[in-house]
């Protein structure tokens, strides 16, 4: 039995995504030399959602996007108990001198983003990297990393667990907060 508390329901979820799209448009105008890069696996779903939103608002189709898998770049690879299984990286364009917006669903310790930034380097030298996240757990950072665009901010104790559920995978969009990972 799930004990999670819904902190973002379906309606507010879609409003939040829409707001993030508008924030991006405010900064990037028509997305020239700009691309979205989603971090496997949930970041990719989020990227597609943002892309759809942007295309609807701007009525343009050619915003570049890619998927980035960071498994091979993780710093905890040999100390984890269970090995991670890699997913696919597909960035079919050069990142050299591009403005990159990294997309993930939850920003927690910052280690994923650190790994993602070293992974990005292997695809060229972007002129600028920004970060967009749906949920920012700002009190649990291990590294000096912050997001530029934030859906919601969750201030919670370290044990708490935030789960983002996507309509593509779970049927309905929502964000849940659990007391601990075991409760999930």
């Amino acid at each position: 039995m799930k004990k999670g508390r819904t902190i973002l329901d379906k309606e507010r979820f879609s409003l939040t995504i829409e707001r993030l799209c508008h924030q991006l448009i405010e900064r990037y105008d028509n997305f020239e030399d700009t691309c979205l890069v989603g971090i496997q696996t949930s970041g990719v779903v989020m990227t597609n959602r943002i892309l759809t939103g942007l295309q609807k608002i701007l009525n343009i189709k050619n915003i570049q996007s890619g998927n980035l898998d960071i498994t091979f770049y993780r710093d905890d690879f040999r100390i984890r108990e269970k090995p991670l299984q890699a997913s696919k990286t597909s960035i079919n364009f050069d990142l050299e001198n591009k403005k990159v917006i990294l997309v993930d669903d939850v920003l927690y310790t910052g280690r994923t983003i650190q790994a993602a930034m070293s992974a990005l380097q292997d695809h060229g030298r972007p002129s600028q990297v920004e970060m967009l996240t749906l949920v920012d757990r700002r009190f649990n950072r291990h590294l000096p990393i912050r997001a530029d665009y934030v859906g919601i901010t969750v201030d919670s104790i370290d044990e708490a667990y935030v789960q983002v559920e996507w309509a593509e995978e779970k049927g309905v969009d929502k964000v849940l907060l659990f007391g601990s990972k075991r409760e999930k």
Partner: protein
Amino acid sequence: MRGSQLSTKHVLGIKYLTESDIRLIFETAENFKEVINRPIKKVPSLRDVTVANLFFENSTRTRLSFELAEKRLSADVVNFSASSSSVKKGETLLDTVNNILSMKVDMVVMRHPAPGAAYFLSQHIDANIINAGDGTHEHPTQALLDAYSMREQVGDLAGKKIAIFGDILHSRVALSNIFCLHKLGAKVRVCGPPTLIPKHIEKLGVSVSYSVAETMAWCDVANLLRIQLERQDIKFFPSIREYAQYFGINQDIINKTGKKIVIMHPGPINRGVEISSEVADSSDSIILQQVENGVAIRMAILYLLAAKR
């Protein structure tokens, strides 16, 4: 869901791997294939791992392939070849390896002329061991890259017909291939002169044929093996010329079957002996793709073994 780790600490032979291990290696190799086709072909996964490549027997391809795989994973690499070492001074295998391990090496890639050498080592030392060929026994990484390359060409191997031609008796590639293809559900046939086909090989579940034409007509994929003259102390066939005439694959033989057959060879190829130049350079031949896949497969194995520690 399939496990995300190998069931074993070493890769000593296909015999010791499960089907899901093999599939996990293929899935991981898929990701590394993407990595090695990037402009920057390197990931930092194994930056805290030291690998020793111990080659007690000659090798160009396998050794280069392993070394590239290790370097592309950012591992530290030390190389050792028997011709320039203390082995000549009478040191035992175990002593040699223990000395190398005292220098804090995490993984050992070994090729050795004695069958079972890698298994023997795994019983005595702590590091992860990858068998890069032990005598006439097994050559697991070659079999994995062969099967992976076949899958790229003909899809899932279940029910597919794979023929292995040539010197089956002296070939560790043949034995590993047979084990690997069977685990993936393929049908295997071996074809060569009777003297080069081991007695009772049918017990491994393969069929045997002495006719190249018949076997070519049967198979979807033909894996041609080299005649290993260096392992033959007696004459197994009258002459290289006669072998080439009866068991060499040329374009005519392929044309007569009237179908597309994927041509493979683990290398080094002897042009004009087991394979004609025309066939080796034709579009049906995937010899060079095999070499490319070799690096990805070896990266996958190194990566998965490192994750296992």
